[in-house]
Structures are given as C-alpha cells and as structure tokens.
C-alpha cells in the first residue's frame, strides 16, 4: 500500500513539474531527486553528480553537437535554392510532377540534418512559392511538405536516434543504418500518394514543364551534386566501417564548411551563427539527457519499470498487441511533449518491457522514431505544423488536415515495420565494425 502511495506521489510530481512549464531537463532532475528521497537511503546528491557526469562526458555523445553543427552550416548555405532547381528537372516526368521535389528534397535534406523542422524550412522556403506559381493545389503542397519533413527524424543523421542510442547504450551507427531502408520506403509511400493523386484528380495537375535535355538537367543540378556526395560519404563511411558515427559527423562538419566556402556563403558571421546555434541546440538536448540519466537511475529504485514489465508479461500480450498499445501511448504523449523528450522520458520504463517481450532494440528505435514523427504532424503541438504555419499563415487545422493522408501512410509504415521487421534489421547486419568502436 505504502509503495503504491509513494509511486503515486512520484508520478504526480512528474506530471506536475512537466505540465507547469518547468524546463523538461530540470523537471526530470527534480522528479528523480524526489524519487531518490522517497525510495532509497542513498545520498541523492552524490549519486546525481556521478550519474550525470558519466553520461554528460561520454564520447558517444559527441556525435550529437557535430551533426547539429553540420546541419546548421548547410542550413545557412544556398542549399534551399539549389535543391529545388536541381531536383525539379528530374521529377517533371513522374506522375504528380514537381510535387515529388518536395518529398525527394526533404529526403535529401534529411540526410544532412537530423531535424525535421529544419528540413521543412529549408525545402519549403523555395518549393512553396515555386509550386504555387505553377498552380499546384495548396493542400497538396502543404501536405506533402509537412509529411515528408518528418523524414528528417528517420533518415540518418537523426538527432532522435542519437538520443535513443545514448539512452539505451546501443550503437548509433547501427541505428542510423537501420533508419535508411524504412526512410526510403516511407518516402516511396509518400511519392506513391502523389502519383495516386495525379491519376484520381487529373484536372488538378498543372501543365507539364518545358522539356529539358539530359545535359541541361545535369547542369541544373550541378550545385546539388556536391551535397549528395557529402551525404553519401558521411553515411557510407559509417556503413563500411571506416568511421564511427562521431568521426563521420566531424567529417560532415569539415565537408559542409568546405561546401559552404566553395559556394561563397561562408564568412565570419555565418560561421559564428552556425556554431552558436549548434551550441544552444546541443545544450538544450544535453540538459534533457542529464536529467533523464538521473531519472533512469532513480526509476530503478522505485521498482516501477520492473513491476510494469512483469505486469505486461502477465497479460500475455502478443508482441503485436504490445506494439499497438505502445503506438497509441506515444501518440498521446506526443500531444504534450516533443520527440526527444518523449523518447528519453519513457525509455527507462519501456526498455525493460520490450526486452522482456523479446523485441529487438534496434528495431524498436526505428519504430519509436516513426511514431514520434507522427506526433510532429498532429495537433495540438505537432512541431512541423507550427513551422508551416509560420511559413504559409494557414490555420493549424488546415495544415493538419492537409497532412492527414500522410499521417495515415505513416500508420501503414508502422504496420509494414511490424509485418516485415527486416526492413529495419537487414541493413544494420551488413555493417562492418568501425575501428576503435
């Protein structure tokens, strides 16, 4: 009985601190402290410092600020213009025409940036006005952009996957590589949707673009090719085992500095703003991770994760039923918390549960990212919705409705992941081990 009361206080404190607007990282720290005081006699303060110091000074974590910085540098180049110009000629003959450049553009930018909102901003800055000028329906422009923007979380480098990997101590390289195939499949699903739309609503499709020869197409995308090469070498070096995630990230930073310099968009100001932007974003995530590492220690003492895992085991749920339940759980959490916070907050409890159920943790990482992506395009706080609202001045509800078909495709994606776990698991098995771990 006492145990239940204490657990009740603990959970109440968690929701109260988070809900009242205390910064997520500090809320987690506070709840963890309360947990330590309630459930053990250990000196809470010293345990806190040891845990947080170990997690904050970890070498694995260094991939995080580096990948953020790489995205920040490329974000400030001319990439957005080059992206549309370079992609449009290749998409013009597909059914659904230039709308595909939204999706492919997002997939490409997702591969240089770990963030989905930055993806939406960069691609949309150029493609929204260009597509509007050509008379594509607004609903389709906004919907495809909102949906495809979420690829930023799935296609490596993905900040959410780094955070997940650090939280459960799994190889970030493996997680990154695991995201590649599902990312491509999801992009194909989105493109299939655009193609389907062009057949069903023939009258909405604008007239074709003027024809271009192969040489002209290449010339139009000459600025995009170096970026593609950078992407391929960053991901490829990890896949071939030449570099760890951190090393690939530092290669990415150097490569994007060189690209920016070659384009003439690198100067003192852009260098410093990209660096300081990366410092702030990485500190924001580091504070959450610091709080979360202490919380997971404290959670261990509460016995809550173990009890919950045992409870789930007694329910004799099939893994599929468990996954359905967790999907709903994360969609609800996603209504209140951002992706990274919801991953770190729940992993202390969910990890024992999935290990007990025999679910592969790499697979689960991809699953959780797809589900968290869905939350990005659902109200009330879907983040991509806010970004698009800022860019287009449409109502949130209009944007959410435009993105609804893509949301449903993500549900299909979760189904595919469950039905064919190899989608996420086959490629990582082919990864060679990097030297020096």
């Amino acid at each position, binding site marked *: 009985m006492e145990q239940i009361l204490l657990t009740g206080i603990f959970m109440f404190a968690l929701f109260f*601190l*988070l809900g*009242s*607007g*205390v*910064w*997520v*990282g*500090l809320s987690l*720290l*506070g709840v963890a*402290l309360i947990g330590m005081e309630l459930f053990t006699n250990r000196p809470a*303060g*010293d345990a*806190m*410092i*040891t845990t*947080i*110091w170990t997690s*904050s*000074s*970890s*070498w694995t*974590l*260094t991939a995080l*600020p*580096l990948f*953020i*910085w790489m995205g920040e540098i490329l*974000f400030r180049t001319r990439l957005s213009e080059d992206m549309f110009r370079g992609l449009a000629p290749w998409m013009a003959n597909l059914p659904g025409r230039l709308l595909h450049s939204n999706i492919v553009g997002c997939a490409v930018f997702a591969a240089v940036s770990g*963030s*989905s*909102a*930055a993806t939406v901003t960069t691609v949309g800055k150029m493609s929204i006005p260009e597509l509007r000028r050509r008379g594509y329906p607004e609903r389709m422009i906004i919907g495809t952009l909102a949906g495809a923007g979420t690829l930023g*979380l799935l296609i490596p480098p993905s900040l959410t996957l780094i955070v997940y990997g650090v939280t459960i101590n799994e190889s970030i390289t493996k997680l990154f590589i695991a995201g590649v195939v599902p990312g491509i499949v999801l992009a194909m699903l989105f493109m299939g949707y655009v193609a389907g739309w062009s057949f069903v609503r023939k009258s909405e499709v604008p007239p074709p673009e003027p024809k271009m020869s192969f040489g002209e197409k290449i010339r139009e995308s000459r600025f995009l090719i170096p970026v593609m090469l950078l992407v391929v070498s960053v991901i490829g070096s990890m896949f071939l085992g030449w570099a760890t995630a*951190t*090393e690939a990230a*530092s*290669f990415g930073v150097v490569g994007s500095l060189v690209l920016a310099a070659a384009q003439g968009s690198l100067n003192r100001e852009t260098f410093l703003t990209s*660096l300081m932007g990366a*410092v*702030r*974003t990485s*500190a*924001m995530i*580091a*504070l*959450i991770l*610091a709080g979360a590492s202490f919380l997971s220690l404290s959670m261990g003492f509460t016995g809550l994760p173990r009890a919950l895992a045992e409870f789930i085991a007694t329910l004799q749920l099939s893994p599929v039923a468990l996954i359905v339940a967790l999907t709903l759980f994360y969609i609800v959490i996603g209504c*209140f*918390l*951002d*992706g*990274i916070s919801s991953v770190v907050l729940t992993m202390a409890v969910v990890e024992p549960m999935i290990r007990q159920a025999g679910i592969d943790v790499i697979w689960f990482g991809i699953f959780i990212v797809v589900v968290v992506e869905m939350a990005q395009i659902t109200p009330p706080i879907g*983040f991509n919705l*806010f*970004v698009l609202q*800022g860019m287009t001045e449409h109502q949130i509800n209009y944007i959410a409705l435009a993105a609804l078909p893509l949301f449903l495709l993500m549900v299909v994606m979760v189904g595919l992941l469950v039905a064919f776990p190899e989608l996420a698991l086959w490629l990582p098995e082919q990864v060679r081990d990097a*030297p*020096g771990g």
Partner: protein
Amino acid sequence: MRDRLVTAGRLIRPVLDALYNASGVLAAIALLAILVIIVAQMVARWTAVSFPGGTDYAGYAMASASFFAFSYALNHGSHIRVSLFLQRLGGGKRRAAELWCYGVGGFLASYFAWFAIKAVRVSYKLNDISQGQDATPLWIPQMVMAIGTLIFAVALVDRFVCIVFGAPITPEHEGSDRAHAE
C-alpha cells in the same frame, strides 16, 4: 530600499550578461575542440601515430560544451518546456507561474551546482584519476561541470529576481531554436 536594490541591479546587469555570454563562448570553443580532437584522432590512426586518451578528452570537451552553454541557451529561450498551460495564462497568473518555474529551476540548478562543487573538492582531496588512458586528475574536467551549473543557477535566479521586480516576461521565442532540434 527598493530603489537601492533596483540601482544595484542595474549595476550588476552588464556584469551578469557578460558572464552568460562568456560562458557561451567557452562552450563554442569546447565544440571546436571536439572537432579538433576527433579529426586529430583520425589523422593519428591513419598515420599510425598514437594519441592516447583522445576519446576521454573529447568527452571532457563534450561536457564543457554542454555545461557552459546551459545559461547561454536559457537566455536565448532554447531549453524546451511544455508551454501548453503557460500560454493560456495572462497577466498576474502568468507571472506567478513563471516565478514558480524559475524558482523551482533555480533551486534545482543550485542543488546541482552545490553537489558538483562538492564532487570537485572530493576528487581533488582523494586525488581521483581518470580510469581512461588519459590519466587526467578528475577534478580538472569536473570543475567545468561545477562552474557551468553554477552560472546556470545564477541565470535562473537572476530571471526570478527580475520578474519579482516587475521585468517583463521575455517573449516566447522558443520556436526559433527548437526548430533545429525536432
């Protein structure tokens, strides 16, 4: 009395702002250091030169980049919070809620800083050495955590005091930075 405090506050203001910015600059230098260390480590591997302790140094630089940036990020509204409830409040209620947040935050950060300082003293006294190949005395890198969180605590308490004295609640420009993390 109140006037005197306000005058004192005006005098300290530039000092504190300079402190937060300096802290941010240190964090940026640490981020550059991470890049340099990792690149040096790769070059060392290719040229078969040994660079013992590189991973540990990168870890210390990571901790510096995080802890020094906490206060800087706070002042730019980069730290994530659930603002669903806060946004619905207006006027006095909003101020009270913000005071609660900065109060709780200030307390927790101070608690953290207190024990971080204690950890540095203990490591120094016991002459704790890193387990890694670098064999650094641990109190040196841990000092970063102590100083960084102390400045973070000061920044939170600073905002708390400002709001008590009627400073406007800084506009929510949280979207700008969050956009890069999601």
